[in-house]
């Protein structure tokens, strides 16, 4: 899941309008950003279930630090604390919640490959409800998150007053541009992910 995470973050903007959208988008993907660095360092990795035909959701992810339950909570708490220095306590809490939402959504779609403790300490059962086994349903979930998220964003943005010197019609145009532009970019991400490009 990629676009679904971003769709959720876009919707969160409606409830936390003072946080910049880029920060929410980055937060929802933060575990994967750290994963990319650990992947490059050979600490975490992923295995295609069918290496000859990589497909949407067709991977087992060995992210035993970034995507462990406790690891994700720690990353969310630390990053949220730092974000709170810029955006206040409430902003930091929202950032932390959005970061952890990544793990919750991954729990829905991943096959059982999410550990509870960092490094899979104790060899506890791996978690994951495996919605990726049914790509149509997981893609539908992602699309729903994108559509609902952008709708909530648009609805909230429509309530913004026009700045002085900006005509109401021009303000409506800006709201449309931001909403439709973000929607198209989210759909692009979803399409490319579905095509495994």
């Amino acid at each position, binding site marked *: 899941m990629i676009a679904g995470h971003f769709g959720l973050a876009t919707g969160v903007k409606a409830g936390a*309008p*003072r946080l910049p959208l*880029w920060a929410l988008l980055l937060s929802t993907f933060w575990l994967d950003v750290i994963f990319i660095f650990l992947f490059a360092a050979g600490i975490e990795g992923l295995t295609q279930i069918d290496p000859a035909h990589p497909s949407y959701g067709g991977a087992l992810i060995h992210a035993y630090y970034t995507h462990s339950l406790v690891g994700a909570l720690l990353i969310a708490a630390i990053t949220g604390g730092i974000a709170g220095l810029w955006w206040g306590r409430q902003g930091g809490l929202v950032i932390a919640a959005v970061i952890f939402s990544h793990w919750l959504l991954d729990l829905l779609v991943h096959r059982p490959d999410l550990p509870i403790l960092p490094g899979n300490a104790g060899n506890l059962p791996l978690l994951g409800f495996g919605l990726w086994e049914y790509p149509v349903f997981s893609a539908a979930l992602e699309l729903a998150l994108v559509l609902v998220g952008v709708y909530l964003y648009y609805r909230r943005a429509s309530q913004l007053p026009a700045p002085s010197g900006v005509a109401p019609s021009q303000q409506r145009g800006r709201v449309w541009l*931001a909403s439709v532009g973000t929607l198209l*970019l989210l759909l692009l*991400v979803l399409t490319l992910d579905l095509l495994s490009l």
Partner: protein
Amino acid sequence: MWTIFAIVLLLVVGGWLDAQLNWSQVNPKSVKEERR
């Protein structure tokens, strides 16, 4: 690789479009009152 490119595009362009709106003028109380 293309997906990563699209994600970067989303962060940069989506973030920029969002920044064009005057979110700093949001007054949460007044929005709640409007909904009522």
